[in-house]
């Protein structure tokens, strides 16, 4: 309702508030002979008009708007065997969100992170917490997951709700969805270059290769790809072990590693606390000394080293697409700011760099799209790039993975890795390496995933089995994928 137009009031030369001038009006005895100057009603009206801005400006400025915050989900295990590794990702994501908020937020609103704990329970708690974030908190995006199992368990919810899941950790490939952005290295960007290096002159071309991984989808798929890759080079693994996440008898592993140890290389995809246990066991058996096996960890970052005595890890190798020791100005600034914010002894790692950069990349896409919905953000992601600590970040629209540069590091006594080898350039993502997944292709801009021959991932060293009973087929295509 619009206010009535103010009537022009003849402005008196002066308003006297003495009792003589106000007397007749206040007494109320002679309403009929009001003077032409301000009467009581006008006076009150003016006073009210004068006070109104004070009152209502207060309300307008101070009242919280319903849409003051954009809630964003950060879904990681903060306790349990994976808590140590995943809480570092949470910190990197928080760091990026704080930077965005410090610049004024996104779309004129501040970002409010919601970070529940999934307690290292990939199968049940990840989807449960994700559902709460999507349904109750109505987050447009979740940065989360660490294990392949957690990603697989959550993804159908995101497809159902048309939201975006941004997965910062390494991926085994063999999956793609319009609702999924993967920022971690694929096997062709990490495992295969690591194998190339090991089998080359620099790696000593060991005669025995032992595969060691945490029992889960990532390790089994990665092992499948590595086995197929080795077959193309007429090589194979001498032994393989899949270790449960909590508690194991390391004796068989150590026995296998100790055999011809000088000629043995261990390719490890152990995750979380298992890394610490394994390196401790190696030290206790005296296998970490010169003449011992070469151990190349693929899920071993600076943050995993914090529970390890330096002498247990010194000299061991790790393959990654980022190390804290990367000598670029962007990285040095990032590390310095992170330490300033979280503490002098905090470290940054491959997955943390990925988590940090993905948050910024998503924010750039949202800013470009001017919206939070999935389609707009996916479209905008094709056109944005982010200069991350480890290099430029850009999403490949066909796979929604990223191009990465491989680095090989050797652990020093300072719990840092010295980079001893890097790939010639950035390696594009290959979600379905053809030697491991014949016929499988992925192009999310044109039809999604094209199915090929069924592949059995449960039998290590398998050959493509077109109609093997009980074959585990790769990732179920998303609703839009064919």
């Amino acid at each position, binding site marked *: 309702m619009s206010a009535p137009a103010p009537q022009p009031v003849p402005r008196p030369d002066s308003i006297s508030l003495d009792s003589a001038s106000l007397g007749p009006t206040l007494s109320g005895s002679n309403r009929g002979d009001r003077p032409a100057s301000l009467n009581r009603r006008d006076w009150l009206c003016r006073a*009210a008009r004068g006070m109104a801005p*004070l*009152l209502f400006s207060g309300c307008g400025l101070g009242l*919280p708007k319903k849409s003051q915050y954009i809630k964003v989900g950060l879904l990681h295990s*903060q306790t349990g065997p994976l808590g140590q590794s995943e809480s570092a990702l949470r910190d990197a994501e928080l760091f990026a969100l704080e930077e965005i908020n410090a610049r004024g937020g996104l779309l004129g609103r501040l970002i409010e992170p919601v*970070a529940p704990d999934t307690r290292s329970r990939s199968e049940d708690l990840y989807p449960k917490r994700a559902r709460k974030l999507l349904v109750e908190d109505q987050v447009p995006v979740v940065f989360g997951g660490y294990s392949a199992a957690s990603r697989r368990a959550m993804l159908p919810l995101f497809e159902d709700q048309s939201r975006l899941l941004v997965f910062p950790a390494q991926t085994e490939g063999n999956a793609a969805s319009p609702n999924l952005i993967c920022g971690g290295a694929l096997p062709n960007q990490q495992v295969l270059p690591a194998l190339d290096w090991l089998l080359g002159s620099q790696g000593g071309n060991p005669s025995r290769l032992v595969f060691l991984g945490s029992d889960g989808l990532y390790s089994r798929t990665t092992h499948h790809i590595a086995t197929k890759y080795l077959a193309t080079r007429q090589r194979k693994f001498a032994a393989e072990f899949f270790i449960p996440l909590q508690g194991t008898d390391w004796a068989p592993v150590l026995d296998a590693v100790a055999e011809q140890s000088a000629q043995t290389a261990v390719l490890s995809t152990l995750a979380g606390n298992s890394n610490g246990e394994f390196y401790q066991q190696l030290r206790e058996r005296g296998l970490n000394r010169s003449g011992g096996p070469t151990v190349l960890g693929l899920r071993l970052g600076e943050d995993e080293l*914090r529970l390890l*005595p330096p002498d247990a890890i010194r000299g061991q190798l790790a393959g990654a697409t980022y190390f804290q020791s990367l000598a670029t100005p962007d990285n040095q600034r990032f590390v310095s700011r992170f330490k300033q914010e*979280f*503490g002098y002894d905090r470290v940054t790692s491959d997955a943390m760099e990925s988590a940090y950069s993905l948050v910024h990349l998503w924010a750039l896409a949202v800013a470009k799209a001017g919206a939070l919905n999935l389609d707009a953000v996916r479209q905008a992601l094709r056109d944005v790039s982010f200069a991350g600590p480890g290099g430029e970040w850009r999403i490949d629209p066909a796979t929604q993975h990223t191009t990465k540069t491989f680095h090989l590091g050797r652990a020093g006594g300072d719990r840092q890795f010295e980079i001893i080898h890097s790939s010639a350039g950035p390696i594009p993502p290959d979600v379905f390496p053809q030697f491991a997944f014949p016929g499988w292709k992925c192009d999310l801009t044109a039809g999604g995933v094209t199915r090929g021959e069924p592949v059995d991932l449960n039998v290590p060293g398998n050959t493509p089995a077109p109609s093997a009973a009980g074959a585990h087929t790769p990732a179920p295509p998303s609703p839009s994928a064919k």
Partner: protein
Amino acid sequence: MFYWVYDLPTWQFGLLTTVSFVLLYWVGVIFVRPFLRLFVRSTPGLNDVVGYILSCFCVFYGLLLGLIAVTAYQNSAQTEATVTREAAALSALYEDVGGYPQPHAQNLRWLLRDYTRHTIRYAWPLQRRGITPVEGGIRVAAFEEALHRFEPQTPGQQVLHAESLRMFNNFLEHRRMRLLAVTTGIPPVMWFVVAIGAFINLAMVWLFDMRFTAHLFLGGLLAAYLGAMIFLIAAMDNPFRGEVSIPPTAFESLFAKMVDE
């Protein structure tokens, strides 16, 4: 219901309360005076009668307001003490776990630092909005998990570990009290009585028979002060809400020490 006032800057909150009371009083004067004129104008001794009753009423109402103000202040002071004790226990725990063998010491200290940072950056803004923060509990659980993972190997470590556990329990107790204080405040029924009392107070002043300007001015002063009193109580109530609230200073100074070591 009126929690939105805590989102206003203090001066706006104070001004809004005071002006609202004055306006209520003025509106009352304007609407009540005609009726008063009809029924009781020129009743001899009216002002004396109203004055006596108002005096009696003000004694009871003043006592109520005074007691509530004291309660609100004590509540705020107790909560502030709880916050300080929690920060002190955290500091002591940080020192204790520093004596553990590496890498446990560093890991435990990282986790405590993480908790402190989270409390300052995320828990406090939520508390200011009247929301009990829950994610700090996750950090506490992570620390507890790491603390229980440590197995003392020497008598010295056993003593240190026992002391750390004792301090951890102490810290937990204060943390729990802080979280409970987030939603603490003067009960709604008490605010209802305060509001009724304020209204009766103003209504009695409406009954005075005097010149209009004097009525507006003198009663307006009373209404303004009444508004200011109620603003003071409201500002001190809900110790974590609004600008007049307990700051995370104790945690901030601790965190500054933690990151600068």
